[in-house]
Protein backbone atom coordinates (compact mmCIF):
# COMPACT_ATOMS: atom_id res chain seq x y z
CA UNK A 1 0.00 0.00 0.00
CA UNK A 2 1.08 3.57 -0.41
CA UNK A 3 2.60 5.01 2.77
CA UNK A 4 1.38 8.60 2.23
CA UNK A 5 -2.16 7.36 1.67
CA UNK A 6 -2.07 5.23 4.81
CA UNK A 7 -0.72 8.15 6.85
CA UNK A 8 -3.35 10.55 5.47
CA UNK A 9 -6.19 8.28 6.48
CA UNK A 10 -4.97 8.05 10.06
CA UNK A 11 -3.79 11.65 10.27
CA UNK A 12 -4.35 13.68 13.41
CA UNK A 13 -5.81 16.38 11.16
CA UNK A 14 -8.11 13.99 9.34
CA UNK A 15 -11.23 15.77 10.67
CA UNK A 16 -10.12 19.19 9.51
CA UNK A 17 -11.83 20.49 6.41
CA UNK A 18 -9.66 19.94 3.31
CA UNK A 19 -9.94 23.68 2.56
CA UNK A 20 -8.08 24.49 5.78
CA UNK A 21 -5.29 22.05 4.97
CA UNK A 22 -5.14 23.21 1.36
CA UNK A 23 -4.88 26.83 2.50
CA UNK A 24 -2.01 25.94 4.81
CA UNK A 25 -0.07 23.38 2.76
CA UNK A 26 -0.56 24.83 -0.70
CA UNK A 27 -0.32 28.35 0.69
CA UNK A 28 3.13 27.48 2.00
CA UNK A 29 4.08 25.93 -1.32
CA UNK A 30 3.02 28.97 -3.32
CA UNK A 31 4.79 31.24 -0.85
CA UNK A 32 7.96 29.18 -1.23
CA UNK A 33 7.80 29.37 -5.01
CA UNK A 34 7.05 33.10 -5.13
CA UNK A 35 9.42 34.43 -2.51
CA UNK A 36 13.16 34.75 -3.09
CA UNK A 37 14.63 31.41 -2.00
CA UNK A 38 16.94 33.08 0.48
CA UNK A 39 15.66 33.68 3.05
CA UNK A 40 12.06 32.98 1.94
CA UNK A 41 12.33 29.26 1.19
CA UNK A 42 14.32 28.69 4.36
CA UNK A 43 11.63 30.34 6.47
CA UNK A 44 8.83 28.46 4.67
CA UNK A 45 10.73 25.19 4.97
CA UNK A 46 11.34 25.67 8.67
CA UNK A 47 7.72 26.65 9.33
CA UNK A 48 6.35 23.73 7.28
CA UNK A 49 8.62 21.26 8.97
CA UNK A 50 7.56 22.56 12.36
CA UNK A 51 3.88 22.16 11.47
CA UNK A 52 4.42 18.73 9.92
CA UNK A 53 6.29 17.26 12.86
CA UNK A 54 4.44 19.26 15.50
CA UNK A 55 0.68 19.81 15.32
CA UNK A 56 0.12 17.65 12.20
CA UNK A 57 1.94 14.76 13.87
CA UNK A 58 3.58 13.25 10.80
CA UNK A 59 6.16 10.56 11.64
CA UNK A 60 9.66 11.84 10.76
CA UNK A 61 10.71 8.58 9.09
CA UNK A 62 7.68 8.47 6.84
CA UNK A 63 8.18 12.12 5.95
CA UNK A 64 11.81 11.58 5.05
CA UNK A 65 10.96 8.60 2.85
CA UNK A 66 8.45 10.68 0.89
CA UNK A 67 10.70 13.74 0.79
CA UNK A 68 13.62 11.79 -0.71
CA UNK A 69 11.76 11.48 -4.01
CA UNK A 70 11.49 15.18 -4.98
CA UNK A 71 14.90 15.74 -3.44
CA UNK A 72 16.42 13.12 -5.75
CA UNK A 73 14.91 14.75 -8.81
CA UNK A 74 16.01 18.17 -7.66
CA UNK A 75 19.61 17.13 -7.08
CA UNK A 76 19.79 15.57 -10.56
CA UNK A 77 18.10 18.61 -12.01
CA UNK A 78 20.48 21.01 -10.26
CA UNK A 79 23.66 19.44 -11.68
CA UNK A 80 23.33 21.10 -15.11
CA UNK A 81 23.26 24.49 -13.41
CA UNK A 82 26.85 23.95 -12.26
CA UNK A 83 28.12 24.02 -15.83
CA UNK A 84 28.06 26.45 -18.68
CA UNK A 85 28.29 25.26 -22.25
CA UNK A 86 29.51 27.01 -25.36
CA UNK A 87 30.77 30.05 -23.46
CA UNK A 88 34.12 31.82 -23.83
CA UNK A 89 35.78 29.24 -21.51
CA UNK A 90 35.37 26.30 -23.86
CA UNK A 91 32.56 23.90 -24.75
CA UNK A 92 31.92 22.86 -21.15
CA UNK A 93 33.07 24.97 -18.24
CA UNK A 94 32.34 25.47 -14.59
CA UNK A 95 29.67 28.16 -14.11
CA UNK A 96 30.73 30.52 -11.34
CA UNK A 97 27.11 31.43 -10.55
CA UNK A 98 26.16 27.77 -10.66
CA UNK A 99 26.59 26.63 -7.06
CA UNK A 100 24.59 29.47 -5.44
CA UNK A 101 21.85 29.05 -8.04
CA UNK A 102 21.76 25.29 -7.44
CA UNK A 103 21.49 25.88 -3.71
CA UNK A 104 18.68 28.39 -4.22
CA UNK A 105 16.86 25.86 -6.39
CA UNK A 106 17.35 23.13 -3.80
CA UNK A 107 15.96 25.37 -1.08
CA UNK A 108 12.91 26.36 -3.12
CA UNK A 109 12.11 22.81 -4.21
CA UNK A 110 12.55 21.46 -0.71
CA UNK A 111 10.31 24.05 0.90
CA UNK A 112 7.66 23.80 -1.82
CA UNK A 113 7.66 20.00 -1.66
CA UNK A 114 7.22 20.04 2.09
CA UNK A 115 4.13 22.22 1.66
CA UNK A 116 2.54 19.73 -0.72
CA UNK A 117 3.55 16.87 1.57
CA UNK A 118 1.83 18.67 4.46
CA UNK A 119 -1.40 18.63 2.46
CA UNK A 120 -0.88 15.08 1.18
CA UNK A 121 -0.02 13.60 4.57
CA UNK A 122 -3.13 15.05 6.22
CA UNK A 123 -5.78 14.89 3.49
CA UNK A 124 -6.92 11.54 2.14
CA UNK A 125 -8.28 11.35 -1.39
CA UNK A 126 -11.65 10.24 -0.03
CA UNK A 127 -12.08 13.66 1.61
CA UNK A 128 -10.68 15.57 -1.34
CA UNK A 129 -12.16 14.01 -4.49
CA UNK A 130 -15.93 14.37 -3.83
CA UNK A 131 -15.37 18.03 -2.90
CA UNK A 132 -13.69 18.85 -6.20
CA UNK A 133 -17.17 19.15 -7.72
CA UNK A 134 -17.70 22.27 -5.61
CA UNK A 135 -14.38 23.60 -6.92
CA UNK A 136 -15.76 23.44 -10.45
CA UNK A 137 -14.42 20.12 -11.69
CA UNK A 138 -17.04 18.41 -13.88
CA UNK A 139 -18.86 15.69 -11.88
CA UNK A 140 -18.14 13.07 -14.55
CA UNK A 141 -14.41 13.69 -14.15
CA UNK A 142 -14.67 13.37 -10.36
CA UNK A 143 -16.59 10.10 -10.74
CA UNK A 144 -13.89 8.74 -13.01
CA UNK A 145 -11.21 9.84 -10.53
CA UNK A 146 -13.07 8.05 -7.70
CA UNK A 147 -13.20 4.81 -9.68
CA UNK A 148 -9.56 5.24 -10.67
CA UNK A 149 -8.57 5.60 -7.04
CA UNK A 150 -10.45 2.47 -6.00
CA UNK A 151 -9.38 0.26 -8.91
CA UNK A 152 -5.77 1.48 -8.67
CA UNK A 153 -5.44 -0.04 -5.23
CA UNK A 154 -7.01 -3.29 -6.34
CA UNK A 155 -4.52 -3.41 -9.20
CA UNK A 156 -1.53 -2.48 -7.06
CA UNK A 157 -2.48 -5.27 -4.71
CA UNK A 158 -2.85 -7.75 -7.55
CA UNK A 159 0.42 -6.65 -9.12
CA UNK A 160 2.26 -7.12 -5.85
CA UNK A 161 0.94 -10.67 -5.61
CA UNK A 162 1.67 -11.47 -9.22
CA UNK A 163 5.24 -10.22 -8.87
CA UNK A 164 5.72 -12.53 -5.91
CA UNK A 165 4.27 -15.44 -7.82
CA UNK A 166 6.56 -14.68 -10.74
CA UNK A 167 9.59 -14.47 -8.47
CA UNK A 168 8.67 -17.85 -6.99
CA UNK A 169 8.79 -19.33 -10.47
CA UNK A 170 12.16 -17.66 -11.10
CA UNK A 171 10.64 -14.89 -13.18
CA UNK A 172 13.38 -12.42 -12.32
CA UNK A 173 16.50 -14.50 -12.77
CA UNK A 174 17.45 -13.76 -16.37
CA UNK A 175 16.81 -10.78 -18.57
CA UNK A 176 14.50 -12.77 -20.87
CA UNK A 177 12.54 -13.98 -17.85
CA UNK A 178 12.29 -10.44 -16.49
CA UNK A 179 10.80 -9.20 -19.75
CA UNK A 180 8.37 -12.11 -19.92
CA UNK A 181 7.32 -11.34 -16.35
CA UNK A 182 6.90 -7.66 -17.02
CA UNK A 183 4.82 -8.19 -20.13
CA UNK A 184 2.61 -10.60 -18.20
CA UNK A 185 2.26 -8.04 -15.45
CA UNK A 186 1.25 -5.24 -17.82
CA UNK A 187 -1.22 -7.37 -19.73
CA UNK A 188 -2.72 -8.83 -16.56
CA UNK A 189 -3.11 -5.34 -15.09
CA UNK A 190 -5.02 -4.31 -18.21
CA UNK A 191 -7.31 -7.34 -18.23
CA UNK A 192 -7.87 -7.03 -14.49
CA UNK A 193 -8.71 -3.34 -14.67
CA UNK A 194 -11.55 -3.94 -17.13
CA UNK A 195 -12.67 -7.10 -15.40
CA UNK A 196 -12.96 -5.06 -12.21
CA UNK A 197 -14.97 -2.39 -13.99
CA UNK A 198 -17.45 -4.85 -15.43
CA UNK A 199 -17.83 -6.63 -12.11
CA UNK A 200 -18.38 -3.34 -10.32
CA UNK A 201 -21.08 -2.56 -12.82
CA UNK A 202 -22.93 -5.74 -11.88
CA UNK A 203 -22.28 -5.09 -8.22
CA UNK A 204 -23.58 -1.53 -8.27
CA UNK A 205 -26.64 -2.15 -10.45
CA UNK A 206 -28.68 -3.35 -7.50
CA UNK A 207 -28.10 -0.10 -5.67
CA UNK A 208 -29.40 1.97 -8.55
CA UNK A 209 -26.19 2.78 -10.46
CA UNK A 210 -27.01 4.90 -13.50
CA UNK A 211 -23.58 6.21 -14.45
CA UNK A 212 -23.35 8.78 -11.66
CA UNK A 213 -21.61 7.96 -8.40
CA UNK A 214 -23.46 9.97 -5.79
CA UNK A 215 -21.87 9.75 -2.37
CA UNK A 216 -22.24 11.51 0.94
CA UNK A 217 -19.57 14.14 1.42
CA UNK A 218 -18.14 13.96 4.94
CA UNK A 219 -19.33 16.79 7.14
CA UNK A 220 -16.62 19.06 8.45
CA UNK A 221 -16.93 22.70 9.45
CA UNK A 222 -14.35 25.16 8.14
CA UNK A 223 -12.56 26.67 11.11
CA UNK A 224 -12.17 30.41 10.82
CA UNK A 225 -9.61 30.38 13.60
CA UNK A 226 -7.49 27.92 11.65
CA UNK A 227 -7.76 29.91 8.44
CA UNK A 228 -6.91 33.07 10.40
CA UNK A 229 -3.85 31.33 11.76
CA UNK A 230 -2.84 30.28 8.26
CA UNK A 231 -3.21 33.84 6.98
CA UNK A 232 -1.16 35.16 9.89
CA UNK A 233 1.58 32.58 9.34
CA UNK A 234 1.85 33.23 5.62
CA UNK A 235 1.78 37.01 6.09
CA UNK A 236 4.42 36.70 8.78
CA UNK A 237 6.70 34.69 6.54
CA UNK A 238 6.29 37.13 3.64
CA UNK A 239 6.90 40.20 5.78
CA UNK A 240 9.87 38.65 7.57
CA UNK A 241 11.40 37.63 4.25
CA UNK A 242 11.06 41.08 2.76
CA UNK A 243 12.39 42.73 5.89
CA UNK A 244 15.34 40.37 6.16
CA UNK A 245 16.11 40.71 2.49
CA UNK A 246 16.10 44.48 2.58
CA UNK A 247 17.77 45.18 5.88
CA UNK A 248 19.69 42.22 7.22
CA UNK A 249 21.22 40.59 4.17
Amino acid at each position, binding site marked *: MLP*IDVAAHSSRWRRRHPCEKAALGLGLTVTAVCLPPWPGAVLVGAATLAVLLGPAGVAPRRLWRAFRIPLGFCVTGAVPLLFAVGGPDGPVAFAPDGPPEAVRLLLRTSAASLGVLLFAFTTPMSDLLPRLVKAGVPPAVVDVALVMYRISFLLLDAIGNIRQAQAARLGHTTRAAAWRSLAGLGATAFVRAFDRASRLQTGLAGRGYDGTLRVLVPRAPVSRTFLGGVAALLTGIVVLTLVLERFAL
Partner: protein
Amino acid sequence: MHIAEGYLPPLHAAAWGVASAPFVVHGARALTREVRANPDSTLLLGASGAFTFVLSALKIPSVTGSCSHPTGTGLGAILFRPPVMAVLGTITLLFQALLLAHGGLTTLGANVFSMAVVGPWAGYGVYRLLRRFDVPLMVAVFFGAFTADLSTYCVTSVQLALAFPDPGSGVPGALAKFGGIFAVTQLPLAVSEGLLTVLVMRLLSRS
Protein backbone atom coordinates in the same frame (compact mmCIF):
# COMPACT_ATOMS: atom_id res chain seq x y z
CA MET B 1 9.58 12.16 -16.08
CA HIS B 2 8.15 14.53 -13.52
CA ILE B 3 9.30 18.02 -12.71
CA ALA B 4 9.40 18.23 -8.93
CA GLU B 5 7.35 20.64 -6.85
CA GLY B 6 8.87 24.10 -6.70
CA TYR B 7 11.35 23.46 -9.48
CA LEU B 8 9.84 25.96 -11.89
CA PRO B 9 9.69 29.71 -11.23
CA PRO B 10 6.14 31.02 -10.65
CA LEU B 11 5.72 32.60 -14.10
CA HIS B 12 6.79 29.44 -15.89
CA ALA B 13 4.57 27.27 -13.69
CA ALA B 14 1.59 29.49 -14.45
CA ALA B 15 2.36 29.68 -18.18
CA TRP B 16 2.50 25.90 -18.55
CA GLY B 17 -0.73 25.67 -16.62
CA VAL B 18 -2.34 28.01 -19.12
CA ALA B 19 -0.87 26.04 -22.03
CA SER B 20 -2.28 22.75 -20.76
CA ALA B 21 -5.68 24.04 -19.73
CA PRO B 22 -7.39 23.99 -23.15
CA PHE B 23 -6.40 20.38 -23.75
CA VAL B 24 -7.59 19.26 -20.35
CA VAL B 25 -10.85 21.21 -20.65
CA HIS B 26 -11.40 19.77 -24.10
CA GLY B 27 -10.73 16.27 -22.74
CA ALA B 28 -13.05 16.83 -19.79
CA ARG B 29 -15.84 17.89 -22.16
CA ALA B 30 -15.24 14.84 -24.35
CA LEU B 31 -15.30 12.65 -21.25
CA THR B 32 -18.53 14.21 -19.95
CA ARG B 33 -20.17 13.73 -23.34
CA GLU B 34 -19.03 10.13 -23.40
CA VAL B 35 -20.45 9.44 -19.94
CA ARG B 36 -23.75 11.08 -20.83
CA ALA B 37 -24.09 9.06 -24.01
CA ASN B 38 -23.04 5.83 -22.34
CA PRO B 39 -23.44 5.74 -18.54
CA ASP B 40 -21.42 2.54 -18.18
CA SER B 41 -18.33 4.31 -19.43
CA THR B 42 -17.66 5.90 -16.01
CA LEU B 43 -16.40 2.58 -14.73
CA LEU B 44 -14.54 1.78 -17.94
CA LEU B 45 -12.80 5.16 -17.97
CA GLY B 46 -11.94 4.71 -14.30
CA ALA B 47 -10.45 1.33 -15.16
CA SER B 48 -8.44 2.87 -18.01
CA GLY B 49 -7.11 5.56 -15.70
CA ALA B 50 -6.26 3.07 -12.98
CA PHE B 51 -4.38 1.00 -15.54
CA THR B 52 -2.39 4.07 -16.63
CA PHE B 53 -1.59 4.95 -13.03
CA VAL B 54 -0.49 1.44 -12.16
CA LEU B 55 1.51 1.04 -15.36
CA SER B 56 3.48 4.15 -14.54
CA ALA B 57 4.26 2.65 -11.13
CA LEU B 58 5.86 -0.45 -12.68
CA LYS B 59 9.61 -0.66 -12.62
CA ILE B 60 11.00 -1.60 -16.00
CA PRO B 61 14.55 -2.71 -16.67
CA SER B 62 16.24 -0.18 -18.90
CA VAL B 63 18.62 -1.35 -21.58
CA THR B 64 21.53 0.15 -19.61
CA GLY B 65 20.71 -2.05 -16.63
CA SER B 66 19.17 0.56 -14.38
CA CYS B 67 15.48 0.55 -13.55
CA SER B 68 12.95 3.21 -14.29
CA HIS B 69 9.24 3.82 -14.71
CA PRO B 70 7.39 3.87 -18.02
CA THR B 71 5.16 6.85 -18.76
CA GLY B 72 2.38 4.63 -20.04
CA THR B 73 1.13 7.49 -22.16
CA GLY B 74 1.78 5.79 -25.50
CA LEU B 75 -0.16 2.67 -24.66
CA GLY B 76 -2.88 4.80 -23.10
CA ALA B 77 -3.16 7.03 -26.15
CA ILE B 78 -3.31 4.07 -28.56
CA LEU B 79 -5.96 2.34 -26.46
CA PHE B 80 -8.05 5.27 -25.26
CA ARG B 81 -7.16 8.17 -27.64
CA PRO B 82 -5.40 11.42 -26.73
CA PRO B 83 -8.31 13.68 -25.61
CA VAL B 84 -9.39 11.24 -22.92
CA MET B 85 -5.74 10.64 -22.04
CA ALA B 86 -5.39 14.36 -21.29
CA VAL B 87 -7.92 13.98 -18.47
CA LEU B 88 -6.81 10.54 -17.29
CA GLY B 89 -3.20 11.69 -17.43
CA THR B 90 -4.00 14.78 -15.38
CA ILE B 91 -5.74 12.72 -12.70
CA THR B 92 -2.82 10.29 -12.77
CA LEU B 93 -0.38 13.16 -12.26
CA LEU B 94 -2.49 14.49 -9.40
CA PHE B 95 -2.47 11.05 -7.77
CA GLN B 96 1.27 10.76 -8.30
CA ALA B 97 1.86 14.17 -6.72
CA LEU B 98 -0.33 13.50 -3.69
CA LEU B 99 0.12 9.77 -3.16
CA LEU B 100 3.69 9.18 -4.30
CA ALA B 101 5.35 12.63 -4.03
CA HIS B 102 6.22 12.37 -7.73
CA GLY B 103 5.89 15.70 -9.48
CA GLY B 104 4.00 18.50 -7.83
CA LEU B 105 1.02 20.82 -7.85
CA THR B 106 2.64 24.06 -9.02
CA THR B 107 4.43 22.03 -11.68
CA LEU B 108 1.26 20.09 -12.53
CA GLY B 109 0.62 22.26 -15.59
CA ALA B 110 4.10 21.65 -16.98
CA ASN B 111 3.92 17.92 -16.30
CA VAL B 112 0.44 17.69 -17.81
CA PHE B 113 1.71 19.43 -20.92
CA SER B 114 4.57 16.99 -21.43
CA MET B 115 3.00 13.73 -20.23
CA ALA B 116 -0.73 14.10 -20.78
CA VAL B 117 -0.78 16.31 -23.88
CA VAL B 118 2.35 16.16 -26.03
CA GLY B 119 3.31 12.55 -25.25
CA PRO B 120 -0.08 11.02 -26.07
CA TRP B 121 -0.65 13.19 -29.15
CA ALA B 122 2.84 12.56 -30.58
CA GLY B 123 2.66 8.83 -29.86
CA TYR B 124 -0.82 8.51 -31.23
CA GLY B 125 0.11 10.57 -34.30
CA VAL B 126 3.07 8.36 -35.13
CA TYR B 127 1.01 5.24 -34.52
CA ARG B 128 -1.79 6.40 -36.84
CA LEU B 129 0.63 7.56 -39.48
CA LEU B 130 2.47 4.25 -39.55
CA ARG B 131 -0.78 2.34 -39.64
CA ARG B 132 -1.93 4.40 -42.58
CA PHE B 133 1.17 3.27 -44.47
CA ASP B 134 0.34 -0.34 -43.63
CA VAL B 135 3.22 -0.78 -41.25
CA PRO B 136 2.62 -3.93 -39.17
CA LEU B 137 0.60 -3.31 -36.02
CA MET B 138 3.34 -4.19 -33.55
CA VAL B 139 5.91 -2.00 -35.30
CA ALA B 140 3.47 0.89 -35.20
CA VAL B 141 2.79 0.19 -31.53
CA PHE B 142 6.51 0.19 -30.77
CA PHE B 143 7.15 3.50 -32.48
CA GLY B 144 4.00 5.01 -31.01
CA ALA B 145 5.07 4.17 -27.46
CA PHE B 146 8.70 5.07 -28.20
CA THR B 147 7.71 8.45 -29.58
CA ALA B 148 5.32 9.16 -26.71
CA ASP B 149 8.05 8.49 -24.16
CA LEU B 150 10.73 10.35 -26.07
CA SER B 151 8.62 13.41 -26.86
CA THR B 152 7.60 13.65 -23.21
CA TYR B 153 11.25 13.80 -22.26
CA CYS B 154 12.05 16.33 -24.98
CA VAL B 155 9.29 18.64 -23.79
CA THR B 156 10.49 18.32 -20.22
CA SER B 157 14.01 19.26 -21.30
CA VAL B 158 12.64 22.34 -23.09
CA GLN B 159 10.65 23.27 -20.01
CA LEU B 160 13.74 23.03 -17.83
CA ALA B 161 15.93 24.86 -20.35
CA LEU B 162 13.45 27.73 -20.60
CA ALA B 163 13.39 28.01 -16.82
CA PHE B 164 17.16 27.84 -16.40
CA PRO B 165 18.95 29.20 -19.47
CA ASP B 166 22.66 28.61 -19.62
CA PRO B 167 24.67 31.60 -18.43
CA GLY B 168 26.87 31.41 -21.54
CA SER B 169 24.74 30.12 -24.38
CA GLY B 170 21.20 30.73 -23.19
CA VAL B 171 18.29 28.42 -23.79
CA PRO B 172 19.90 26.28 -26.56
CA GLY B 173 22.90 25.60 -24.36
CA ALA B 174 20.68 24.70 -21.43
CA LEU B 175 18.65 22.43 -23.69
CA ALA B 176 21.85 20.64 -24.63
CA LYS B 177 22.74 20.25 -20.95
CA PHE B 178 19.36 19.01 -19.71
CA GLY B 179 18.80 16.98 -22.83
CA GLY B 180 22.24 15.44 -22.55
CA ILE B 181 21.87 14.47 -18.93
CA PHE B 182 18.43 12.95 -19.34
CA ALA B 183 19.22 11.31 -22.67
CA VAL B 184 21.46 8.82 -20.90
CA THR B 185 18.49 7.49 -18.98
CA GLN B 186 15.59 8.40 -21.24
CA LEU B 187 16.68 7.05 -24.62
CA PRO B 188 17.10 3.49 -23.38
CA LEU B 189 13.94 3.92 -21.36
CA ALA B 190 11.99 4.94 -24.45
CA VAL B 191 13.22 1.77 -26.17
CA SER B 192 12.25 -0.27 -23.13
CA GLU B 193 8.83 1.31 -23.00
CA GLY B 194 8.32 0.60 -26.68
CA LEU B 195 9.27 -3.05 -26.14
CA LEU B 196 7.05 -3.41 -23.10
CA THR B 197 4.11 -1.86 -24.92
CA VAL B 198 4.56 -4.30 -27.78
CA LEU B 199 4.73 -7.27 -25.40
CA VAL B 200 1.62 -6.13 -23.55
CA MET B 201 -0.27 -5.50 -26.78
CA ARG B 202 0.72 -8.93 -28.07
CA LEU B 203 -0.57 -10.64 -24.96
CA LEU B 204 -3.74 -8.58 -25.13
CA SER B 205 -4.40 -9.30 -28.78
CA ARG B 206 -3.90 -13.01 -28.15
CA SER B 207 -6.22 -13.38 -25.18
